[in-house]
């Protein structure tokens, strides 16, 4: 057999066998793996596309939800702002009312304190004035003052109805002279018979006569007391007319 022919036939058969074997053992499984791989890629691509579509849908839903929430939030915020504003106004009103009430209380307290201080001041001033008057009477002193005060008491006794004077109690700072005693008896009239004459300390000068109609105080202490009370009343009257708390209200 010719080597060339043998080689020719062998190579032809060899190649056919090789093609069959490669087709069976290489091309077919690789092609199958390739198609599986391609199918897998396509499936993954499809899944990815579905996931992407799902993600986009979720994104749209989220955007819509976010927009709704934002709108609700804005509405809630405005509502809360309005509520808070009303609450603030209410609190402010209540605070104003409370402040007004407190101011009124303070004003009253201030007025009360002012009145108390004014009364105290009036008392102090009247007391000082009465003491001054008392010291003035003490400096004047002497029988003339005693006589003048008794004369004044006698005039007041004469102005009273004679029947209603008794019982009479006469207190004097100094022992009465006969003239002074006679003047008093004369002024007392019938009530002089039951009159009780005493000498007491603390009157300074003059007399203090207790009658059925009332007390006639013509002593230095009585005048001083009278002057004190008159001053206090006058100062209160003047203070009330002047309305000294106007400045406090203005403040």
């Amino acid at each position: 057999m010719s080597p060339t022919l043998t080689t020719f036939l062998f190579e032809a058969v060899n190649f056919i066998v090789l093609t069959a074997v490669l087709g069976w053992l290489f091309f077919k499984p690789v092609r199958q793996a390739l198609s599986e791989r391609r199918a897998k890629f396509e499936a993954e691509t499809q899944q990815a596309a579905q996931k992407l579509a799902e993600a986009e849908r979720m994104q749209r839903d989220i955007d819509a939800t976010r927009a709704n929430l934002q709108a609700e939030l804005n509405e809630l915020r405005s509502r809360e702002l309005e509520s808070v504003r009303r609450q603030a106004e209410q609190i402010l009103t209540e605070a104003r009312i409370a402040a007004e009430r407190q101011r009124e209380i303070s004003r009253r307290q201030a007025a009360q304190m002012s009145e108390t201080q004014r009364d105290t001041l009036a008392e102090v001033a009247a007391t000082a004035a009465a003491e001054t008057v008392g010291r003035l009477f003490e400096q004047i002193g002497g029988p003339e003052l005693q006589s003048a005060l008794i004369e004044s008491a006698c005039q007041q006794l004469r102005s009273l109805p004679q029947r209603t004077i008794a019982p009479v109690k006469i207190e004097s700072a100094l022992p009465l002279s006969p003239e002074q005693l006679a003047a008093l008896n004369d002024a007392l009239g019938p009530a002089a018979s039951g009159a009780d004459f005493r000498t007491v300390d603390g009157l300074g000068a003059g007399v203090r006569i207790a009658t059925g109609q009332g007390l006639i105080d013509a002593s230095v202490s009585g005048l001083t007391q009278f002057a004190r009370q008159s001053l206090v009343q006058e100062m209160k009257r003047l203070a009330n007319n002047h309305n000294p708390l106007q400045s406090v209200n203005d403040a």
Partner: protein
Amino acid sequence: MHLRIFGDPVLFHIGTVPVTETMVTSTVVTLLLIATAVLLAYLATLRPQHWLSLVAFMIVESFDNLVTEIIGRRHTIVSTLAGSLFLFIASCNIAGQLPGVHPATGSLATTSALAVVVFLSVPIAGIRSNGVWGYIKHYFRPNPLLMPLHVISELSRTLALAVRLFGNIMSGHLVVGLLVALAGFLVPTPIMALDLLIGLLQAYIFAILSTVYIGAAISAGEE
């Protein structure tokens, strides 16, 4: 170095059958190719992420796309044939670069056998695709008088396939052998690189032309 053009030494006989050096070389290349292909297929099936799997995918995908572009549709048998032709011829040509190895494609018997396989594949593919009459009638187009020219054309292109591959590989191997004999060991290295490139190019051309011939036979009925 022993240089030869047409002679193919007989290494031994199996009975009365002589076993030539080309047969041994092509057998070894075929076995290596099968082993490599099995390994690649194994990796591609079980470990698709391995880089050798990617090489296998690339080879198969490339020939599938090539055949699809030439024929116009996907044809796995043709792409398997084209891929096998390219891999076998390229492997033989690369093996020829090894010292002392005579490339199987440097034998006219081998290239003729491959060309004859292609020649026989053309009518088989044509008949399978278009039927007997559908394929045969294309020999009579556009005019029955041109039928002998069709036959001559098919024979001549088969001859051209065989001789082109044989001539290129044999001449390259011969040039390298001559340069080694005359100039020394490292001088023919550029020529060997060129020969390697030519070998791959010729394998590609052989596969392309085979695909074109078979594709033409498949689409003969559509003309």
